[in-house]
Structures are given as C-alpha cells and as structure tokens.
C-alpha cells in the first residue's frame, strides 16, 4: 500500500507534467462512456446519444458557471488526467507511455541501457498474449506426446511412412525435444521470453501507473465531475453528510472547502504489479530449484543405515553440497497401518540422524505428507518394499530369505521368495514358495505349487509343509525414501504467498468519488476500475442515504 495521498499538495498543479497526459487525454475526452462501448456497430447510437446528452446537460445546467469556464478548462487538464490511465488497467503499453516513463529508480537502473525499442516491443500486450498462448499450446502438446520414453517408442508411434496429421514424424518430435517438453529448449525459451515480457511490462506500464495513481486529487469544476462514469447531482444536500456516509461505507474521505475526494480499494490498483512480481519470484525460485538442488532416492531395509551424501546427486551447476550431507541416516523401524479392509492406510518410518561423530541429532517418525526436515535436507516417505522374510525351519534358524518383487499388471505390489528343499544343485530344484502382497500376511505353497496356508508374521504359528515345520519369524520391510535439498523452495513459497495475496486483492476494485458543493446542490461523480455495476449500485444506495436539507429559514419566513 502506498501512503495516504496528500491531495492538498498536488492540488497546486505544481510539477505535474501536462505533456505526459496531453496525448492520453484525447480518447477520454472524445467519449467519456467509451469504456462501455466495446464493439463497433451497436454502441454507435449510444455514443452519439450520450454526447448529445452531455451537451444538453451542460447547456441546461451550465449557465451560471459559464463565466469562469475558461479558467476551469485549464484545470480539467490536470484533474481529468487520471481516467485514461485507469482504463488502461494493467499490462498495456499500446500507446507507448513507456517511452515517456521517467527512469530514475535505482532498482530498474540497468533497464536504462536497454534499447527502448526492445522494451516497448516486449511490453506489447499482443506479444505477451501470444507468448501465453504459445506456452499453453506447448504444455498441451506435452501432455499429448508421451514424455521421457526411449527413442524407439517415438520411432514406432510417429513413423515416417505414416505421419500423424500428415506431417508429424519422430524427426519433429525428437528434433524439437518434445519428448521431454518441459525441459526442451523451445519451452524454456518461451518461458524466458514471458519473464522478459513480465519485467518489461512491469517497468514500462505498471510502475508509471502507480505514479499516476498517486496524483489523484480534488476536482474543482462541476463539469469534470459530471464527465465521470457515474454522475449525479443532489439538490439540497451537504457535502459533509455525503462525506460521513462515504466514510461509513469504508471510503477514505478528504474534504477541502467545497470539494470532496474519496477513494476505496487503492490496493486493487496496485495488486496487478504484485501479481507480476510474484510470478517473477516464482520463476526465479523455480530456476534456482532446477539448477541448485540435490535429489536422491534410496530403498533401505529396516535396521540399516546410509550416508546422505552417498545417495544425493546434483541437479544442476549451482548444486553445492551442504553440511547435512555428512549425516548418517539410520532406519530404526518401518511399518504400515492398514484399514479394516486390508488396504494400506499409511506408511511410517522411524529414522534417526547421526552426525559425523556418531551423535544422534534428530529422530522422527515420518510418513507420507509428513517429511523430516534437517538443515536444508528433506526426507520424504515415498515407497516401500519387502526386503526379507525371517523363517525358521524345523527349529533351526532363523534364516533370512530375500524377497524379490514380482511383475504384476496393475499397481499392486507382489513379492515372493523360495525355500529350496533337497539338493540345491540339481537342475530342477523344488521347494516352498512364499508370496506376499504386504507385510501382513504371507501365502505359502508347497513343492507341487499347491496352496498350503497363510501365516501372519506376528502370530509365530508354525505351518507343516511336506513334513517340515516352518515358522515365519518376521517380515522385514524396506522403506523407500526420497531425499532432497532445494534452495529454491523458500523463494517459490514466498512467490506463492505473494501471488495468492495479490490475485485476491486484484479482485477488489479501486473506486474514486469526487463531489463539489455548488450552492445547495452537491454535484457527485465517481468511477471505478473493475466492479462497475456493483459500484453503481453501491453509489445509488449511498446517495439515497444522504439527508435532504430542509431550509428552515424559508418556512419561517413564509
């Protein structure tokens, strides 16, 4: 938010550069209601009519003002200067106001050296729209074309003999890098171009808008007020009453002599700048994430440990290892929670972090949606596996049988192991097969492959297969952990927060109201940049509340 205006200072006209507005003024003065007139043919009638109306208005009402209208004409230039800019909204530099933007802000200093033509071209709205369309189209293409497959896949899917749509062959797909769309040079270039446009637009269009927006002030001529989108005159009313009512409606009200100025929702005018800056912040954070992060993925059986630095691999050239890479991670326990129906409800891994000298620095039970964070390192629970089955045979053991993941169609996992019986060197070894979908229950099959029974590791209940007594002692799971260091996250999160806030604020409209006490009549005018119909309704409602002053003297005399 900007500091509250001090209209009294700007009222004098002082350093307001009239030249800056002289060209901008033209469209507004031609047709004040042009904001409503969007397409050519039909509105034409109304445009003429509204012009007629206003001229009639001024003829019928203006006479008393006529003598000093010349003096006021001069002022209109100053005070009426606001409308065209407000109608521009954000992101437009179509009429080249960027060229006249004063460049003195140190933050944007380096732009000064940039050729102005480039800036103007970049902040061109149609170009920005084109860029957004291109990015949207590329992203859509990225979801249509399978991503990250081996080249063979594309040879088959986009063969040269039978091109898709008549021209798309694998040469196109691979040549443009569309097999990895979101890291392809074309896509990244578009993003960079969009970022450049964002910056250029913020600099050439939006920042000047702020400067203009802070110059709003009183209007001292009834004519200028009547030219507003919403204008009304209230006979026998007082400007003080109006001011109080406006204040009650949440307006900031300034009164000076016979004139009043009030505004509401100034933040709504500045928020689009915030949106752009937040976008840039997110892009910057995303770039840092892409170039400066480490990732690692590891599957650790329960009870084992690993050193963070061993599993991490850098993502880009800005990836520098941190202190946390020397930490040793020990998986104390891995377990799962189940629903009554037998489906997994949650995975838990109890992990401890040890520093180099063997001291435990942190211990936490992580689960999906609840990662561990330590010194810039984040450990996520992402996967699980069945590491080994601990069994004892005829009282001997326990033995550890490694479990192997079996290929199944579908997303369910299946693990299996095999306990050979008899001569293990013979070509056709027979034995007991054990299969498990999760750590809860193990299905056993005998030598002929016939179903033998189901045992739970926790029950310690023996099972007799082919004369052998087998006890399943324990099921040892392995936990799938993802490790990450990402220096971009704080920046991206800051951008997210700013973007949410500023987009929400952008929904508000910036409304301004001017009024002038003209004898006993209050001439009232107002405008807003977004919620035009709501504004009209609000104003109608507020103006109804303004009390009518009954002139007591007259009744006494009469």
């Amino acid at each position: 938010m900007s500091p509250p205006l001090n209209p009294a200072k700007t009222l004098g006209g002082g350093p307001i550069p009239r030249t800056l507005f002289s060209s901008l003024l033209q469209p507004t003065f031609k047709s004040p209601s042009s904001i409503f007139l969007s397409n050519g043919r039909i509105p034409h009638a109304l445009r003429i009519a509204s012009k007629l109306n206003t001229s009639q208005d001024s003829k019928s009402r203006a006479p008393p003002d006529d003598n000093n209208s010349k003096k006021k004409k001069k002022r209109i230039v100053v005070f009426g200067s606001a409308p065209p800019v407000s109608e521009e909204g954000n992101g437009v530099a179509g009429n080249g106001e960027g060229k006249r933007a004063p460049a003195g802000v140190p933050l944007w200093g380096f732009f000064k050296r940039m050729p102005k033509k480039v800036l103007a071209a970049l902040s061109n709205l149609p170009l920005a729209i084109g860029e957004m369309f291109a990015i949207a189209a590329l992203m859509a293409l990225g979801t249509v074309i399978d991503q990250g497959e081996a080249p063979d896949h594309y040879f088959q899917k986009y063969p040269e003999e039978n091109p898709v749509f008549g021209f798309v062959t694998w040469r196109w797909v691979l040549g443009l890098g569309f097999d990895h769309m979101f890291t392809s040079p074309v896509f990244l270039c578009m993003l960079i171009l969009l970022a450049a446009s964002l910056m250029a637009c913020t600099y050439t269009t939006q920042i000047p808008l702020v400067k203009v927006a802070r110059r709003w002030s009183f209007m001292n001529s009834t004519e200028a007020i009547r030219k507003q989108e919403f204008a009304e005159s209230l006979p026998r009313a007082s400007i003080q009453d109006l001011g109080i009512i406006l204040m009650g409606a949440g307006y900031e009200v300034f009164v000076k002599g016979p004139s009043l100025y009030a505004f509401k929702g100034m933040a709504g005018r500045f928020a689009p700048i915030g949106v752009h800056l937040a976008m840039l912040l997110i892009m910057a954070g995303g770039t840092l994430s892409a170039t400066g992060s480490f990732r690692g993925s590891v599957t650790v059986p329960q009870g084992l440990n690993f050193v963070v630095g061993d599993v991490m691999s850098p993502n880009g050239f800005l990836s520098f290892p941190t202190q946390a890479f020397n930490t040793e991670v020990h998986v104390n326990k891995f377990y799962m929670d189940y629903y009554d129906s037998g489906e997994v409800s949650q995975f838990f891994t109890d992990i401890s972090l040890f520093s180099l000298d063997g001291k435990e620095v942190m211990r936490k039970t992580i689960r999906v949606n609840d990662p561990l964070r330590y010194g810039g390192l984040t450990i996520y629970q992402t996967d699980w596996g069945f590491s080994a089955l601990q069994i004892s045979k005829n009282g001997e053991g326990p033995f550890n049988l490694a479990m192997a993941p079996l290929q199944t169609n579908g997303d369910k996992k299946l693990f299996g192991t095999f306990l050979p019986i008899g001569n293990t060197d013979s070509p056709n070894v027979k034995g007991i097969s054990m299969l498990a979908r999760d750590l809860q229950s193990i299905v056993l099959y005998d030598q002929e492959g016939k179903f033998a029974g189901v045992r739970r590791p926790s029950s310690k209940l023996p099972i007799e297969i082919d004369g052998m007594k087998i006890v399943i002692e324990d099921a040892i799971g392995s936990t799938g952990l993802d490790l990450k260091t990402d220096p971009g996250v704080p920046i991206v999160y800051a951008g997210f927060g700013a973007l949410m806030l500023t987009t929400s604020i952008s929904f508000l409209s910036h409304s301004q109201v001017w009024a002038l006490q003209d004898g006993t009549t209050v001439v009232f005018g107002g405008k807003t940049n977004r919620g035009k119909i709501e504004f009209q309704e609000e104003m109608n409602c507020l103006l109804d509340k303004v009390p009518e002053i009954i002139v007591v003297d007259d009744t006494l005399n009469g």
Partner: protein
Amino acid sequence: MIFVALEHILTHISFSIISIVITIHFMNLLVYEIVGLRDSSEKGMIVTFFSITGLLISRWISSGHFPLSNLYESLIFLSCSLFIIHIISKKSNHKNNLSIITTPSTIFTQGFATSGLSTEMHQSAILVPALQSQWLMMHVSMMLLSYAALLCGSLLSIALLIITFRNNIHFFCKRKNFLIRPFFFGEIKYLNEKRRRVFKIKNPSSFSFRNYYKYQLTQHLDYWSYRMISLGFTFLTIGILCGAVWANEAWGSYWSWDPKETWAFITWTVFAIYLHTRTNQSLQGTNSALIASIGFFIIWICYFGVNLLGIGLHSYGSFTLTSN
C-alpha cells in the same frame, strides 16, 4: 448403515426435485412463463441445495474424511458450489441473472453425477496415504469452486458470443435456427426479463429498441462474465498453489508436470490471457469472450479429460465410461 440409507434418500430427493425444476424451466422457455412456477423452482433449488449439502455432510461423517476423494463426490461438490454461486447472486440482489447459467449447469452436473457414473463409483473410497492431509480440503475445494465460477463466467461469455453472432446465423440458416433455439433459451429469457424491467422504469429512449436491449444485454453479459472469471481465477490460483505446496509436502516436488497439473496451468494461462485482453479496449468484447469460451472447453479437459486417461498423480479420480 443409517448413513447409506440417508445418502440414498438425499440423492433421490435432490435428483427428483432437480428433474421437476428442469421441467419447469423448459416449460417456461418453450411454452410460456408462469410466475408462480418460477418461484417454486427457486424453492426447489434451495431444497436441492440443502439435500446435496446434507449428502456431503453425511458422507463426511460416515467416511471420516472430507468427501472429495473421487469423481462422484467432486461432481456433487461442483454442483454444490454452483448452487452457492447461484444463491449468493440471488441474495446479493444484483440483477445479474446468473441463475440462467447456474440452474441448468447444476442440473447437468447433478444429473451426470447421479446417473452418468456407475454405482460402484458412488462408493466412498478409502484415502490412499498421499491424500491424507489437511491440504486435501483446501486444494480440492478451491479447485472445484474455481471450476464452478469459471464455468459460469465462460458460459456467460459463450452466451455473449451467440447473441453477437446470432443475427448472422439467422441470416444464412433460418431453418437450422429452430434446432438451435433451445440453446438460446437463457438469452431469450434474459432478454424478456430485461425488457420487462426497462418497461417498468419507462426509460424514454429514442434508440431502436431491439438494438438497445441487445446492447445492454451484451454489456451485462460481458461485465458479469468478467467478474465471475476474475473470482474464479483467484480461486484457481489459490487452488493450484495449495496443490503445489501439498505436493512438496507429499512427494518432494512442488511442480512435476503431471498431466492434471499441466492442464490446470493451461486453464490458468488461458484465463490469464482473458484478464489481459480485458485491459485493452481494442481486444475487449468479442475477442475476450472468444478466449473465455476456449477456456470453457479447457476446464472440461482439465476436469474430465485427464481423468478419463487416468494417468499421473491425480489418477485416483479416474474412471471408465460405462458403455456396457
């Protein structure tokens, strides 16, 4: 068990009331308008709203988690959000006639949710570990609210386009016009209503009547579609960003170019383009309406199309169309 029965009853109530409401609407449109019936259809909408809300709440209690875990529930929630928009627009007393858009949309989503999806899909699913988070409520409800608002806004824009180009259509395919007629019902009704209002206030205007109304109508449609889309865009931004933060909590990456994510971003981009065209005089009007109507189809691709494929991280919402 009691919840199952309750859900059943509520589904039937809402569905039968909605069928009555849609009949009334069609009668109003195609035959002639009866004021009493119009009021009763309003009441019917409110009753439906409460029964749908009750349905969601009972599912919430019975399943123990926020009822947005599958497509059926999300569709119900979508029609619920359309209702919310409908009721707010009624209550706030703007003469915006959003109900012309919201009522049929609600009816269609509700109808599709109840009859278009197979009954197995009505079952409340258990939450997979990744979905067990407080973010579920924030992310999914925001996304659906934004879909509802954006759908309303873009439908208004489509209506604007149809009205603007109707004369041309009328010109070269008079016979076809009869077939298209039902699609214009909203606008015709809107037009009628407008006319009545203007008659009431007896606006002495010298313009050609038809053109003036048409002009005013397009202005209103334009304006309200802009406001609805701005609102929906805000929700969409919040929804996507909440999803990103959630993804960073659950999978360790705030953006992974998953198809659903990508399409949500495409939707966001298209509506960002719309909002930018609004800032420029020369692009306003028909151009921005065109973009909003593109956005309409993109929302459906994002919401349904990606689910049909059933790929990526958002595949829990996937389904197969019941052909046999």
